Every structure is written in C-alpha cells, then in structure tokens.
C-alpha cells in the first residue's frame, strides 16, 4: 500500500485545510496505545522474563532450602542432555512429519472436490466438515478418549477386537487422529475459500484449451493453492508444536507418557518440581524450535516455487 495521503484536488482547491484540524503526530499512538500496552504486558514482558529466568538454576546450599542462583546457560545444557525432553521433540517431529501432510492432503482433496461442483449439497458438506473445528480441543480429546476406551469403544464393538488405542504403540496415532479430525475441515475451508477467489476466466481459458477436470485440478488449481498451502502448513507446524490438551485429557484414560509432546513434558516437569528456571529454558527452546521449523519450511517453499 502507498503511504501518501492524496486528497481529491477539488476538495483541496475549495477549502485549504485548516492546520489545526490535521491529525497530530500523537493521533496514531493514541489508537495504538491499548494494543501496545497489552502487547508489552503479555508478550514482550513474559518473553523477556522467560529468557531472564532461564539463566537461573535451583541450588541447595548447605542444609537450607534450594535457592535460585545464576547459572548461565546451564539450564540449556541440561535440556540438551535431558533424554526425556529430546524424546518429546522426536515424538512431535515424527507426529508432524506424518500428520501434517496427511491432513493437508485430505483437506486439499476435499476442497478440490467441493470446488468442482456447485449446488446445495456442497454447502451441506462444507458445514459437516467444519463442525469438528467448533469442538474445543479438550472436548475433542475427551470424546475420542471414550471412543478409544477399550471397554466401550464402538470400533471394538463393531470389529469384535479388543484394540487398545491408548497403548504406548498407538497413542501417537490416536492423538494424530484427534488432531486430524479437528483441523482438516478448518484447513479445507481455507483452501476452498482461496479457490473461490480465483477469477473464473483462468478456468475458462484452461477449458477452451481442452483441459479435463483432472488436468484442471492438477495443473491449474493446485499451483494456485500454493501460497495458501504454505500458510496452512506454517500454521499447522505452529499448532503441532503446541499440542497439549489432547494428550493431557487422555492421561487419566490410558497409558500416556509425560513426554508425549514437549508441552506436556514442560507442564508436568514444572508442576512436579517447581523448577521455573528449567521450565523457562524449555519454553524458550520450544519457541526457538518453532521459529526455526517455520523458517526452514518458508525457505523450502520459496525455493520450490522458484524452480
């Protein structure tokens, strides 16, 4: 957008603007003030405080209670030697590599199908696919938790098996299913909205060139979806790094290790030990990893786009 404040010539000629009525320098800051105040209080300050806290370690001196003393980077060193934490990162990486592509593939396929035909059926499907997103992730975790439960799962009732969806082998997949259930429709609507915004003459041109439906989807629509797919992937990466509610509500129902995700590990470690310095270091690392992963993906997407 351009920054100049062009005024229609007629208006200017008719009455020269009185100086006193021009927006003062302070005006934008007046409108910015509430946001900036909240931003400083609930973003800048916590981030700064987390970094500061992460430099302190708990130390027992003599017989007294443990005290917080300056420890430099030792919390970070400890994090990189903490096999439980590293394992939680491995879990979430495996989770993301499998779940994000599957979910976006499904969302893209459904968006392309819905975009291929019009009519009221399309509206019904859009609504149905979107409904899971309106279910809070805790509630989704709770409901699927019951559906997974060995003794009352309708899936087991139908199949006659006694599959334990909450066993240590299956838990990551079971959580993946909940996340996929919640978010596929949301991503589908985003992609569908992007397709609807494409000017129809692009399709007409392709049609005149004799493109089939499949070719239209593969060679015209899919490339047009690239920016939206990049965006949805970034949001999925950020969301994946934050997964907490689903495994947390599944814990009482089955075997869910504390370090199933970095966030559950962070929360449970701090709740158990009250070691805020170490918790802060883990939080800082988590934020840095999220930024790095998003950055890597953006660069990857940009390079792919250039070739």
């Amino acid at each position: 957008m351009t920054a100049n404040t062009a005024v229609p010539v007629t208006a200017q000629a008719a009455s020269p603007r009185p100086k006193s009525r021009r927006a003062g320098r302070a005006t934008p800051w007046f409108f910015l003030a509430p946001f900036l105040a909240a931003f400083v209080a609930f973003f800048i300050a916590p981030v700064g405080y987390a970094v500061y806290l992460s430099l302190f370690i708990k130390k027992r001196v003599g017989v007294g209670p443990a005290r917080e003393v300056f420890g430099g980077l030792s919390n970070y060193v400890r994090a990189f030697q903490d096999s439980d934490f590293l394992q939680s990162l491995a879990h979430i990486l495996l989770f993301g590599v499998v779940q994000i592509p599957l979910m976006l593939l499904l969302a893209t396929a459904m968006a392309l199908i819905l975009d291929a035909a019009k009519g009221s059926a399309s509206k019904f499907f859009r609504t149905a696919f979107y409904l899971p997103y309106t279910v809070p992730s805790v509630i989704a975790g709770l409901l699927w938790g019951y559906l997974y439960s060995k003794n009352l799962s309708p899936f087991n009732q139908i199949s006659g098996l006694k599959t334990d969806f909450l066993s240590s082998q299956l838990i990551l997949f079971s959580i993946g299913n909940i996340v996929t259930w919640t978010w596929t429709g949301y991503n589908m609507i985003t992609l569908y909205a992007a397709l609807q915004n494409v000017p129809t003459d692009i399709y007409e041109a392709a049609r005149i060139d004799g493109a089939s439906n499949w070719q239209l989807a593969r060679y015209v629509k899919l490339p047009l979806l690239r920016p939206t797919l990049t965006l949805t992937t970034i949001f999925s990466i950020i969301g994946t790094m934050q997964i907490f509610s689903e495994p947390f509500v599944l814990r009482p129902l089955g075997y869910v290790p504390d370090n199933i995700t970095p966030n559950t590990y962070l929360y449970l470690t701090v709740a158990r030990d009250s070691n805020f310095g170490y918790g802060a270091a883990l939080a800082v690392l988590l934020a840095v990893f999220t930024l790095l992963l998003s950055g890597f993906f953006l660069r990857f997407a940009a390079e792919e786009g250039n070739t």
Partner: protein
Amino acid sequence: MLRRESFSPIQWLLLAVFTVYCLLPLWWVITTMFKDNGQLFSTFGLWFSAPSHLLENVRTLFTRQDGIFSRWLLNSVIYAGATALGSVMVSAMAGYAFSKFDFAAKRGLFTLILATIMVPSTALALPIYLLMQKTGLLNTYWAVILPGLVNPFGLYLMRLFWDAGFPKELMEAARIDGASEQTIFWSLGLPLVRGGLVTVGLFAFVGAWNNFFLPLVVVNSDTLYPLTLGLSVWNQTSASSGQEPIYTVIVLGALISVLPLLIAFLTLGRYWQGGLASGAVKG
C-alpha cells in the same frame, strides 16, 4: 460450464466417507447422552438404548457439586465474551492506526507483531503465570481475559478491513468539515467496518472459548474454571473418586459446551469464510 451441476459417483463416495468421519463422534454424543453408566458399557455405542436417562443426566449435570456446572458455563461466557469484545476494540484501534497513519517504525512494528504469531502461546504461559503471581492477578477473571487482548491475527485482519472499507478521502473530507479524530474513528469509521468487527470478534470468541492451557495455568479455584477445564477435571476425578463414574453426564456437558459455537458458526458462517479467505489470499 466451469463447475458441473453435481459430483461424480467416486466424489460422492469420498465426500460421504469423510462426512461420516466428521460426524461420527457427534452422533456418539447424541446417543450417549440418553444412557446411564451401565448402558454406556453394555449397549452398542452408536445406537440408542432404552430406557432413557437423559433427564437424570441433565439433573446430575446441573446439581453435582452444588450446580457448579452452571458457574463454569457462565465463566466461559464471561471469558469468551470479554476477550472477544476487548480484543475487537483493541485490534480495531491498532488496525486503524496502521491503515490510516504514518508514524515512526511503523513497518518494523507491524512485522514484529505479526512474527509473534509463531511464538507458541504455551511457551508464554509459564512466565505469564509468574508475572501474574507477582502482580496479584493470579486466580482472577482478569488472568484469563487480559492475555487474550493481544491478538495479532485480529490486528492484521482489521488492518485489511480498514484498508478496504474506509477510504482516506472520506477521512479528509470529515476533517475539513471540522470533525475531531475521535469522531472520525468512532462515529464515521467503525460502522463502515462492522463486518470486520464481527469476523475478528468471532475468531477471538472461539479462541477464548476453546482455551484450556491458559486457565489451567493461571486459575486454581474451581469456581473460576471455564467449561473446558471443569469438564476435564471431572473426567480426571470421575475415574478415581470411588463413586459411580459420570461419563455420560460429562458427555452431555461436552455437548452443551459445544452448542454456543455451533450456533455462532451456523448463523454467522459467512463472516468465517470472509476472514479465512482474506487470511489465505493476503498471507
């Protein structure tokens, strides 16, 4: 002939399968809320069973622990309502500043604010907890509401709505007519971006309604729980309390916790799509 009149058989099949997947848990909720705990384990999960225990479940839901469920419902309404209203106002004002004015460090500030979307909110929860402990905000309504006022995506959307909905020429004309900056914003500008206010408000409402981690961390008295936290605690204690488990009551509570969002989505659906579309295209 851009879009065909209907789907092909294979497309129908794929759509039908995915619909079943999306609706299955909700269907299970509807059959389960009529059951008692015995029927939950002894009858087929995806169908109704007689006799109905719905009324009994409703009574238990609203009377257990002196009817604390109603309190949680009210809390959720307060948290989500206040967060939505507050963040809409804050975002509308800031979006207006970014859209209509030039000031020092404008570009850098906007980039910084947008980049914060990438910082996991859960990473902020621990320092926010400690800072609130120091300032006495912990375990109050404010503890859940105030952090929600920082809504970078809402700010971004509002800037787009201001760009598109309120021409600068109109501002200049109003200034010439002697309108103050406050009048221009509140009386002239805001009504023109109503659609944006609704869109941002909806996203903020859903985000706050669904929030679990923040209340879990900053609120510890059960009279301040939102629905999400309350139901999760019931689920946790139900298995271990030694009393008859109340799973079907929790399921009914889960349905009630979803209803407001369901209604909001079904009645205001076009605002959702508008918001998602602008995010998707301009992002």
